[in-house]
């Protein structure tokens, strides 16, 4: 079995709260990513997907505690915290942030900020860096003479593209994109997504796309994991998630998305709210809102089980399946 490019194993993140106590934001998340693969991480706001992303790059605040492993090409980059993770930043793993409009320092030119990581990681210097930055900008659809402009002179969509160009500055292997299209209008969204797909192909980039927007995942990704309350509820190919969901949350989530092409369906939404993460959760976290809950759900935590080819889900409804997943 080949080593996956990126593997998260049992990732847990706690945040210390100001009034005392802890918020258990990520509760044992595991998944794998192969080179060149496009993977989606889906869930409601607050489910821990962004935190999990930030953990991969070790970008957590001082009040955070991490347990678990993040293995890049087999090596656990979280072994000694900041020390082991920082050498991989931007070189191997780069990120485009949520609201990347603000990813740029307003008092520096966009070009200089794209060149900055090149200098830092000794990828290029001086004129070479300048040229590479301009090429990156052109590749994402921005005319290269814009390199000397300031961020506020770019439109929202253009800034997002520039942020993507900046992320590619050191030719990383993995690109993390956190809600890259939120706050952009629909036309621009589609362009950005197409851009991400084509870049992934051209640069052989693995892509992890974090979003709460299902059509986005459907358009861009091959596989996805659905997160709920800090845990992975289900993980499978897009096709499987859409047509053969094995977790009620997945099913309800996809049903809640209005499909504009099929007319006249009622928009379903899931009543209730996710559980609080500063207290221990007993049983299945989704149980209070689940329409298929039964006896074991309130008291026993369901484990991630293999329910099909490359398909795992954590739900008691799958208990009859005889092959338990081995992490």
């Amino acid at each position: 079995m080949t080593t996956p490019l990126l593997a998260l194993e049992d990732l847990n993140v706690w945040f210390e709260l100001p009034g005392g106590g802890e918020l258990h934001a990520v509760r044992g998340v595991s998944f794998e990513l192969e080179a060149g693969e496009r993977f989606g991480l889906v869930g409601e706001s607050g489910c821990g997907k962004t935190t999990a992303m930030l953990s991969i790059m070790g970008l957590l605040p001082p009040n955070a505690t991490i347990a678990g492993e993040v293995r890049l090409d087999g090596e656990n980059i979280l072994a000694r915290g900041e020390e082991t993770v920082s050498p991989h930043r931007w070189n191997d793993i780069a990120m485009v942030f949520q609201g990347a409009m603000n990813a740029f320092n307003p008092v520096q030119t966009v070009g200089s900020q794209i060149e900055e990581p090149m200098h830092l990681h000794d990828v290029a210097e001086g004129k070479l860096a300048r040229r590479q930055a301009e090429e990156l900008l052109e590749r994402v659809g921005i005319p290269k003479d814009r390199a000397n402009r300031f961020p506020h002179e770019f439109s929202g969509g253009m800034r997002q593209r520039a942020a993507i160009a900046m992320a590619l500055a050191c030719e990383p292997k993995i690109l993390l994109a956190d809600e890259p299209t939120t706050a952009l209008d629909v036309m621009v969204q589609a362009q950005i997504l197409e851009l991400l797909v084509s870049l992934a192909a051209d640069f052989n980039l693995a892509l992890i796309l974090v979003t709460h927007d299902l059509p986005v995942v459907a358009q861009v990704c091959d596989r996805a994991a659905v997160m709920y309350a800090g845990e992975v509820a289900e993980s499978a190919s897009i096709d499987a998630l859409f047509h053969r969901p094995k977790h009620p949350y997945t099913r309800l989530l996809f049903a809640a998305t209005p499909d504009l092409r099929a007319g006249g369906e009622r928009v379903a939404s899931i009543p209730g709210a996710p559980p609080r993460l500063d207290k221990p959760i007993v049983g299945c976290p989704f149980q209070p809102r689940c329409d298929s809950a039964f006896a074991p759900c309130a008291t026993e935590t369901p484990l991630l089980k293999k329910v099909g080819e490359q398909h795992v889900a954590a739900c008691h409804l799958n208990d009859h399946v005889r092959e338990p997943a081995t992490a």
Partner: protein
Amino acid sequence: MSASIQGGAAAATEGVDVAAARRPGSIRHVALREPTAIAGLAIITFFVLVAILSPILVTGDPKEKVGPIFGPPSASYPLGLDGGGANMVELLIAGTRVSLLVGFCAALVSAFIGGTVGVLAGFYGGKTDVVLMRTTDYFLVIPDIPLMIVAAALFGRSLTNIIIIIGVIYWTTTARLIRAQVLSVRERVYVKRARALGAGNGRLIFKHILPQVAPLLVANTVLLVAYAIFAETFISFLGLGDPSVISWGRLIENAFNDDAILNNAWWAIIPPGLCVTLVVLGATLFGQSLEDALNPRLRVGHLSVRRFKVRPLRGKLDSE
């Protein structure tokens, strides 16, 4: 003085409970839980008590000579004697009353003027707003302390005049603050609804807008007290204060004029200034935490010397 120093008081009282700050109606709850805010309140309360009790604590004339000039601290006179041989402790207590009185009254005057200007400008908008705000802008440019000094010199040295002068000079920041608040309140749904139902302007102002603005005004007034006491020391120090009353500012002036330094009489110099510093500090801390409680702002810092912590893998996580 400017708004930025208030930001510092805010910083010193940082650490507001996030959850509590988001709960409506728990403003007092939040402010009073902060140790520095409580300390501020305690200081103010202490001095207010001293001021109120001063007629009891000080019998007779505090300026009365009871010993040699600049007599050092002793058992019967813990803070020594001033340049006229009077008991420093009694002088300080008497001064507390005057200084706090001036402070509070002047602050009230400022708050009243500033609040009125702010409400009118914010509520009526349009020309009224422009005129009032331009006036405020001009007032802001004129250096406050020279103006105060000159006005004090020109208009006579009674206590009332001092109070009015200080009050008239410091209303500008209050006006801006209140105006901003009124502008935001004015757009709220229930105000529009009340207006649609036919409520007149007066009713709108008094029943709907003022209650929303009042807490901020109160918080700001506490800060104004700090400014006012500070301002009074300036005026007194330059000999422009009311000659018939004792205030902390006056005590500092006396010490200076009586050559306390030559006599190494630190006990005549340090206590009055210390009192001013403490009260100003206390009022600033308390007032700022009040203002903050009404406008909670939460910041996340991405940089810190400390890093996130890594726990060793604990096998299967228990009891979930």
